[in-house]
């Protein structure tokens, strides 16, 4: 059995059924005890509704956004690396390997006295010997070394930042 207060709060909140709402409305109109209690609770309800919110510090939003940025910075290396970079590096190495394979094949001298390969007159094989020279090879090795140093430097920086963050924590 609900108390008068409970019934009246349900009436004020509108959480009772339509029939109950009507019955309580009638009691408020006819019964002095109900009417007084209703007025008291209504006043209290109004006061509760006017409660003020607390104000966070001025830099609150900034601090949260900084926290989010710090979280991004300490992402694991695996998650932070763009997959396109991985694909580009993989592509580069595949091309380099292909380059060396073709170079190696072009350098091999096969002499078969009895085998004769008939190449149609219309097909002209490219002269790869003229294409591959020592400067091109040096260029490739130099590029590999620079790329390797760049990736090593990036890894060291990330590792340093991660250690710094753990130190702050």
């Amino acid at each position, binding site marked *: 059995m609900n108390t008068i*207060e409970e019934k009246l709060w349900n009436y004020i909140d509108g*959480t009772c059924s339509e029939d109950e709402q009507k019955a309580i409305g009638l009691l408020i109109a006819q019964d002095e005890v109900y009417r007084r209690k209703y007025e008291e609770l209504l006043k*209290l309800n109004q*006061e509760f509704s*006017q*409660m003020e919110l607390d104000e*966070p510090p001025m830099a*609150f*939003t900034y601090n949260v*956004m900084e926290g989010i940025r710090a979280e991004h910075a300490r992402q694991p290396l695996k998650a932070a690396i763009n997959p396109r970079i991985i694909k580009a590096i993989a592509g580069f190495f595949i091309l380099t390997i292909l380059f060396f394979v073709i170079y190696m094949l072009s350098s091999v001298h096969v002499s078969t006295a009895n085998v004769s390969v008939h190449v149609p007159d219309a097909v002209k094989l490219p002269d790869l010997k003229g294409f591959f020279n020592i400067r091109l090879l040096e260029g490739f090795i130099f590029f590999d070394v620079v790329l390797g140093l760049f990736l090593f430097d990036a890894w060291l920086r990330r590792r340093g930042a991660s250690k710094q963050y753990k130190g702050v924590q």
Partner: protein
Amino acid sequence: MQSKLSDIELIEQTLAGNQAAYADLIKRHQRFVFTLAMRFSKNREDAEEIAQDCFIKAYRSLSSFQRQSKFSTWLYSIVYTTAMTFLRKKRVDTDSIDDESTYIQLENHSGFDVNSAENKSRSYYLNQAIAQLLPDDAAIISLFYMGEQSLEEIGQALNMEANTVKVKLFRARQRLKEKLERNLKGEVKELI
């Protein structure tokens, strides 16, 4: 100046990589989240930590927000779990959390000057009374009146049935009323 975009639009922009949109979401909800955190922690420094942690957690799991409820309801459920974890971490045991007397001697955090007679309005006593309530009672009252959440939404945020929330709200209002009356009576006696 706050954005006129809806919460959902701001969430979509945030998920698309616009961090400024999330800053707008924070500005929109920070006062209530901070107030709710205050209701649990009863301390400004702790409330700030809880509120910040809550917004960072919400950012991290924004993509998992199902949009079946209001963003605010989802956010308040994060405040509740974050606050509970925080209180547990602070090694406040269950008995002391449930002990109402713990909160009676709490300092005033309403931002008013306690010694200024002019500031001792009804609203001051109301803030004082709410600070003396148990965290759950204070949170339910805040969610209902200040967060404009329905009983069902409060239930979702606090992981309770709507009917349980209804009963708890009734009891919390009764306790708040009693404390308010007691504080006001005490003040009248002081004046006499």
